């Protein structure tokens, strides 16, 4: 069967149908959602580590480890303690994985307190201290492998009851706020854009879109004619995130000394 687009004789219909081809989400958002949800997946993998018997436990753990960051180590015990929402909290505030990896002790308990997840109280390991996190993860791993009976009900129950929703508005709110800054910049209100970025950073100190926010700020300074400021910030950004897709463009803003 052929598509209407190629068979219709009506120009108006064809125009409507072909306009659909142009529509799509912005690549930036796809990237940030992918990052946020990848961590979420590790969380659910963590939950299944405890609920699945024998060999599945091993694969689950391998999968978690193969993501290559300490994120997995941080998230797994959180999930098992029933704080799926808490784990999302971590994700929302700490998108650049290198930062999380550098300071897991700082982010994990923070998310725990902030998540206000109703199930956090019920989780049997809600008193996890920062130092005990990796140990707890190992312990659960062993529990899953040797006596899945004991660990499974906790994790299954936790996974069922933990509301994952609180995180969604949070990241959506971040996206909305950054979009405001972007459109301010796009419509020539560069100083508004800088103010909006600063407000965003104040409200989301570990924002998932922190890098994007910084890019907006740098471009805003450049647009304002504050080349020295733009150059300095661009140099910092490029040095810190050389692999970031924005970096090649920002290098162009760095002034020669």
């Amino acid at each position, binding site marked *: 069967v052929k598509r209407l687009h190629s068979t219709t004789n009506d120009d108006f219909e064809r125009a409507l149908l072909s306009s*659909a081809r142009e529509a799509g989400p912005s690549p930036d958002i796809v990237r940030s959602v992918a990052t946020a949800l990848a961590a*979420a*997946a590790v969380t659910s993998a963590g939950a299944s580590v405890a609920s699945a018997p024998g060999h599945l436990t091993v694969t689950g753990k391998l999968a978690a480890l193969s993501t290559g960051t300490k994120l997995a180590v941080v998230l797994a015990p959180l999930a098992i303690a029933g704080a799926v929402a808490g784990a999302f909290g971590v994700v929302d505030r700490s998108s650049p994985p290198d930062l999380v990896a550098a300071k897991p002790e700082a982010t994990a308990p923070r998310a725990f307190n902030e998540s206000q997840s109703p199930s956090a109280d019920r989780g049997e390991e809600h008193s996890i201290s920062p130092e005990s996190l990796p140990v707890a993860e190992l312990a659960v791993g062993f529990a899953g492998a040797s006596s899945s009976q004991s660990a499974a009900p906790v994790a299954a129950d936790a996974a069922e009851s933990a509301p994952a929703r609180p995180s969604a508005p949070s990241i959506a709110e971040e996206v909305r706020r950054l979009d405001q800054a972007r459109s301010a910049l796009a419509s020539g209100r560069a100083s508004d854009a800088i103010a909006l970025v600063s407000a965003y950073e104040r409200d989301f100190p570990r924002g998932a879109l922190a890098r994007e926010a910084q890019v907006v700020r740098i471009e805003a300074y450049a647009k304002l004619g504050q080349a020295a400021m733009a150059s300095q910030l661009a140099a910092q950004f490029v040095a810190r995130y050389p692999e970031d897709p924005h970096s090649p463009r920002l290098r162009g803003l760095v002034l020669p000394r």
Partner: protein
Amino acid sequence: VKLLVQEHYRFVWRLLRWLGVQESELDDKAQEVFLIAARRLSDIESGRERGFLAGVATRKAAAARRAMRARPESVALDQVEPAANHPLPDAQLETQQAQVLLCEVLDSMAEDLRTVFCLFELEEVEIPEIACMLSIPVGTVGSRLRRARAEFSQKARLVRARHAWASRGGSL
């Protein structure tokens, strides 16, 4: 999951849009779809990811439309700018305008027809896969598609007529 998002985010986002989710809510809703998928990752058979996502997206979109109907003030129609009054600066805007009109046409279609129409005509999913996604027989997809095309043509004429009328300043 990262792969899942990278491969299918665009599909889900577009599908939600064609199924009537407001542009301002698209990214929220798309994230919610993937959030659900992420939690049920182990239930999804490999190779059927897109079908699963389409199912979730369809239900989300239906819920979003119900919520929108509950709020009477709708922004969508105000965004339709009469074309003749403003010579369009570039093709980009024209495309955007056609998209708004397209959504208007889709909005006026019956829900089951709209879903099949969007999947087949706009997302270019093949009929057997649609049947699988919606858990309906292939024959039903075919007949819905025929009816959907007829309805689309009819509504498109209506929208065009209304649009032409509006662009002449609302007087005949």
